[in-house]
């Protein structure tokens, strides 16, 4: 049951093959069975079974939609009323969110069944899920490897069949890189497509929530539920949401695919490059035309990103002060001591690094040299992509330069960890939508194909991914021991 698509499950629910309660129980059992993966921070078993009962009633009375009764898991960055929302941090270990994120409201309205909250790098800062207060998540394809990050719990849960689908958030690659490392489908929508209300902020001009699923078809259904204008998010874009499922079967005849030469240069592992090249050949069989393009300023994406993301993080995380919610240190002697120790005791190393970096970049005398400079570089990178997307319909390449690395391998070398985000980060700077689609294996670990589209071209991306998934079966593979 755990490998079925959403449409297959929805049909099974309607045909009476199984109830939502039974389906939910199957997943709750699997979550317990495979808890060594550490994919979940909180399992909301009672709430899930209650929601499933309500969903069965809706199904019986014909008031259901495709997601009614479908078990989903939420990244622990989305506020869920009355349920612990930790963001992977000791700071919020005691935080019961007093309201729902818009994304959570939308899934509740659809009647989806929340199984629990998924592990992640603390405040979404990391590329390996090793920065979680709740411990590292294991990659179901290789238990000694990282699942990627920051949405590592989401990727591991979907890959191991511990949820039908999940949500993730992507600030510099945090949906696409773990999706690539765990062999699932992940979509980072255009900035502003999915509401950020109630999604705990890391870098507000880059953060975007999106679906993490087994297939592009499932992603279309989940994105349909998530997307749309939200007056509660001042950066939400008021632009009509198309019917994503309806667009899946458009032909790819004549599709022009740009391959940026900067994506295939030094640093890309030859075994990953071979998988990507083979995937592109499949697209040629589907009628696509390949063109070499260039993103000349790509090499500056990482420096610009780490200035902008750190600066925004230092501002956003100043709200965690030990006064109104979250962790407070014991016996503070004065107000400064309360702030300094509460923050010092509750934030992990990577979060501290970025707060310090951002504070420095925004401090008097350095603002122009770092933050303003990074924003100018950001525009040049965005213009590189805009120019490229006038020449071609979509851009393809690798998601990550190598397959999933070992747990502990890069954790003591933050710069090396940052460099592994080279292909994903630039997309967030530009605000474009992009996907990771399972395209094969290297060293027995999954490799994702990166598909980048123009602003609000999510429907086209899903269509391009779906057509590939119709002629390949990489997205249907299950890791050994989790079948």
């Amino acid at each position, binding site marked *: 049951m755990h490998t079925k698509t959403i449409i297959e499950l929805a049909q099974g629910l309607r045909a009476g093959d199984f109830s939502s309660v039974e389906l939910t129980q199957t997943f709750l059992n699997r979550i317990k069975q495979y808890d060594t993966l550490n994919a979940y921070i909180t399992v909301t078993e009672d709430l899930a079974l209650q929601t499933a009962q309500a969903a069965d009633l809706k199904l019986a009375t014909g008031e259901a939609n495709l997601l009614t009764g479908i078990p989903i898991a939420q990244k622990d960055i989305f506020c869920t009323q009355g349920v612990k929302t930790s963001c992977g941090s000791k700071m919020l270990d005691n935080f*019961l969110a*007093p309201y729902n994120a818009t994304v959570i409201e939308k899934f509740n309205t659809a009647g989806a069944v929340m199984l629990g909250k998924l592990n992640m790098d603390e405040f979404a800062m990391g590329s390996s899920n090793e920065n979680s207060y709740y411990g590292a998540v294991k990659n179901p394809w290789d238990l000694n490897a990282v699942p990627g990050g920051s949405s590592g719990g989401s990727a591991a849960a979907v890959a191991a069949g511990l949820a039908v689908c999940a949500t993730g958030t992507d600030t510099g690659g945090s949906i696409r890189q773990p999706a690539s490392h765990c062999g699932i489908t992940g979509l980072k929508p255009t*900035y*502003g497509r999915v509401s950020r209300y109630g999604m705990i902020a890391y870098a507000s*001009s880059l953060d975007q929530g999106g679906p993490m699923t087994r297939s592009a078809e499932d992603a279309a259904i989940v994105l349909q539920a998530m997307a749309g204008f939200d*007056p509660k998010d*001042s950066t939400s*874009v008021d632009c009509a949401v198309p019917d994503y499922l309806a667009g899946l079967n458009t032909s790819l005849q004549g599709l022009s695919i740009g391959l940026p030469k900067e994506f295939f240069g030094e640093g890309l592992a030859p075994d990953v490059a071979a998988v990507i090249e083979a995937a592109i050949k499949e697209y040629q069989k589907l009628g696509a035309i390949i063109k070499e393009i260039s993103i000349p300023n790509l090499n*500056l994406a*990482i*420096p*610009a990103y*780490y*200035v902008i993301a*750190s600066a925004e993080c230092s501002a956003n995380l*100043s709200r965690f*002060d030990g*006064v*109104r*919610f979250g962790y*407070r240190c014991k016996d503070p*002697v*004065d*107000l*400064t*001591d*309360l*702030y*300094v*120790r509460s*923050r*010092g*005791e509750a*934030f992990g*190393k990577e979060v*501290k*690094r970025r707060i*310090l*970096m951002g*504070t*420095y970049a925004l*401090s008097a005398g350095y603002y122009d*040299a*770092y933050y*303003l*400079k*990074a*924003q*100018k*570089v*950001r*525009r*040049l990178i965005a213009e590189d992509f805009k120019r490229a997307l006038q020449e071609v319909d979509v851009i393809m390449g690798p998601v990550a330069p190598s397959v999933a690395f070992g747990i502990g391998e890069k954790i003591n070398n*933050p*710069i090396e960890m*940052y460099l592994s985000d080279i292909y994903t980060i630039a997309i967030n*700077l*530009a*605000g*474009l939508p992009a996907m990771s689609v399972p395209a094969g294996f290297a060293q027995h670990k999954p490799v994702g194909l990166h598909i980048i589209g123009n602003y609000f071209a999510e429907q086209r991306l899903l269509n391009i991914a779906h057509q590939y998934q119709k002629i390949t079966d990489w997205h249907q593979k299950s890791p050994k021991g989790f079948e």
Partner: protein
Amino acid sequence: MSLTASDVKKIAHLARLGIDELDIEAYTHDLSGMLNLMVQMSDLNTDGIEPMAHPMEQGQRLRTDEVTERDQHKQFQAIAPQVDSGLYLVPKVIE
């Protein structure tokens, strides 16, 4: 470009962020590494380029001035570390 231990202490103070004395050296090393990465940007001429703050170039949306939030202070303060009579309590600031 490299920072000193005293730079890191000063930044930590600005951020009101407690750092263990034993970790100062590691943070000094890591932050200097990050800065070395960032100075690569200075090689690129950005004269006359408008800074980009938002990918959609959106301005702030306006709405009519209406009350949209109801009073939920009891619910919000239920998760606060220390409250009394609807007030958040902190150590004494003025003697």
